[in-house]
């Protein structure tokens, strides 16, 4: 196990050289936005969307209601860098980039467990593939940039409609400089039983990554998408402001899973939203490791009667980190239901915050909602807090909220040690047990990856 761990650790910390940065620059202005759009040969409407978003970005200030973002120097970020052109076979991917992904286990996993794979390095996708059987059924799994070219009408109809640029400063930033990401379209009644996967990697120093994920799951369709993210450590702030928009049509079911393990100097400010229609079901499963500050609250908007959403999340705040994560559910229709289960771990002075919103509107009758948050502190230096907001405008709702916060039990650790486990093994075992309800929901190779991440965090050997 330790051998595997050190390989993962290497892959995490290793940086490739970044000659492509020579043609990139820091900071953001209109000319850069125009350059990005031009280099992608985008239609006018997309350039227009970018420029409007840029204007919003320039007019808005950083949010102040959450973690401290004052040290994030937006002028020193490189907003766009292209490391390689998109390849459709793994062999064509440049050697050093390939090595990084190979160490992280991406191509092997594709052969065994996955329906399709995409990999993004800096701002652009370097590899994308979908199994033929799903292509034949009309499934589209593409690099987002390619999708704009190939399916402009489909993209235009949905792009940044669930997450509009005026939502907050980083959504506006995203709209202005977004690049790469994943586009998924599952046609009516098509069910994909294997997960589709994408992997995002920030390599160079002071990078920004702004991938856009757009997924349309048509009536009665089913699918599971999973993504992993990582970046090496530089000691210079980098920024990840991705955006995920998911449209789950009537009677469709979709699961979006992510395991994010950014380096400890990255700001991870992500916006994820799903629009869930009649009798459709949306599931979010997320694990957040690494990063300096994370702000992430996947949101489900339950639009149609009988729609439902499950949010399962895990955050690990280690030394010097703030994990401000949670979930938002907006119940707009009757007989909708939601279930939120969030677990956080804090260690070495790390701080985890559960921030949630449960919003039940007046017209939504017979809503059922359950919120469950559990915080485990691994030492007395660490902190955890819970900020659950509930707006309930209809009194037929059934709402249950439970929050627990506790230190790792000395008694449990002592018991396990007295049976021959080291302190570290005992704590890791208790932590694994604590997160088990989340990890259990991940596909095998991701569950293994998540357990490795946990083990690394428990050893304190990363960062």
């Amino acid at each position, binding site marked *: 196990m330790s051998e595997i761990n050190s390989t993962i650790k290497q892959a995490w910390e290793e940086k490739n050289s970044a000659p492509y940065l020579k043609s990139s620059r820091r900071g953001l202005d209109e000319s850069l936005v125009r350059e990005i759009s031009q280099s992608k040969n985008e239609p006018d409407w997309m350039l227009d969307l970018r420029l409007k978003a840029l204007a919003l970005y320039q007019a808005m200030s950083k949010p102040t209601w959450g973690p401290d973002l004052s040290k994030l120097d937006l002028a020193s970020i490189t907003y766009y860098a292209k490391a390689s052109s998109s390849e459709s076979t793994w062999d064509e991917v440049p050697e050093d980039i390939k090595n990084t992904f190979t160490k992280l286990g991406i191509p092997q996993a594709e052969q065994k467990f996955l329906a399709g794979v995409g990999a993004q390095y800096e701002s652009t996708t370097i590899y994308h593939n979908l199994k033929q059987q799903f292509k034949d059924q009309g499934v589209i799994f593409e690099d987002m940039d390619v999708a704009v070219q190939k399916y402009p009408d489909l993209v235009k109809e949905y792009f940044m409609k669930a997450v509009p640029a005026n939502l907050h400063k980083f959504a506006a930033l995203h709209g202005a400089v977004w690049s790469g990401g994943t586009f998924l379209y599952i046609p009516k009644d098509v069910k994909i039983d294997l997960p589709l996967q994408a992997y995002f990697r920030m390599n160079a120093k002071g990078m920004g990554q702004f991938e856009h994920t757009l997924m349309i799951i048509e009536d009665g369709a089913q699918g599971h998408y999973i993504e992993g993210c990582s970046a090496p450590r530089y000691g210079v702030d980098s920024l990840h402001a991705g955006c995920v928009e998911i449209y789950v049509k009537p009677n469709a079911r979709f699961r979006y899973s992510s395991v994010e393990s950014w380096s400890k100097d990255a700001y991870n400010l992500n916006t994820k939203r799903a629009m869930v229609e009649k009798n459709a079901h949306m599931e979010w499963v997320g694990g957040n490791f690494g990063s300096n500050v994370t702000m992430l609250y996947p949101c489900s908007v339950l639009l149609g009667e009988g729609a439902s959403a499950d949010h399962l999340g895990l955050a690990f705040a280690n030394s010097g980190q703030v994990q401000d994560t949670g979930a938002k559910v907006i119940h707009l229709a009757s007989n909708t239901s939601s279930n939120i289960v969030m677990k956080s771990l804090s260690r070495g002075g790390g701080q985890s915050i559960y921030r949630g919103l449960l919003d039940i509107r007046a017209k939504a009758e017979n809503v059922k909602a359950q919120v469950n948050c559990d915080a485990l502190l691994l030492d007395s230096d660490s902190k955890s807090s819970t900020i659950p907001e509930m707006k309930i405008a209809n009194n037929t709702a059934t709402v249950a909220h439970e929050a627990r916060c506790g230190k790792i*039990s*000395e*008694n*449990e650790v*002592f*018991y*396990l*040690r*007295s*049976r*021959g*486990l*080291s*302190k570290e*093994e005992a704590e890791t*075992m*208790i932590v*694994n*047990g*604590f*997160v*088990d*309800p989340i990890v259990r929901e991940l596909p095998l190779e991701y569950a293994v990856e998540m357990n490795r991440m946990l083990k690394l965090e428990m050893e304190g050997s990363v960062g």
Partner: protein
Amino acid sequence: MLLEVKNLSVEINEQEILHDLNLNLEAGTLHVVMGPNGAGKSTLSNVLLGHPNFQIKSGEIFFAQEKINDLSPEQRAYLGLMSLWQAPPEIEGVALEQFLFLAYKNIFAARDKAWKAPSVFEFSELLKKQASILNISPELLKRSLNVGFSGGEKKKIEILQLNLLQPKLAILDETDSGLDIDAMKILAENIKNYQQNKGTVLLITHYPEILEFLQPDFVHVMVKGEIVKSGKKDLLTTIKTSGFSQFI
């Protein structure tokens, strides 16, 4: 001597609980330490196991000729110390079988460098066999450690670990309290088997019922952190008839 406790004084939260305590156990014997509530019996058990919250102020503990004052709980487990808990913790998400596999591997690998660990499959077979002797259902082994287990099931899982981990000294810290007669008999039988395999037992209790099934070699009376009286089995009769008050 397997265990030698010499002039041991122990405190927790700056309060002294054990004062100048002496206790010697020869390998293969069964000792009983009895005493009223608050005598420091649990402290004795905890300090022998190396609980980090208890501070040794003075004195020494030797186990198998090695001074163990500063050894961690797991190092003591490797040497062959084990306690059967009265109320073992319930730990959500920690699969019993996985925990036992790790405990088993760690302990036997530490005791014998040449020892070769079994595969998961081999261990699983071994565990099933041991569990069936105690009438533990295999389904229980897949579940979270002690979560939702009945009192009897928890006790059996402790006995299972005694049989599996083969310590040199088994400390039974109030292990017998709250047991019905059938569970008591199962416990006593397993302790007897353990003794036949040269096991040494330190039974710490304020509750002498299990001694109807076991033959102690020595009986010690503990009051206010000290052993105030030691004797053979007949000391039990004295305690049974007139309680601890005569020693206070």
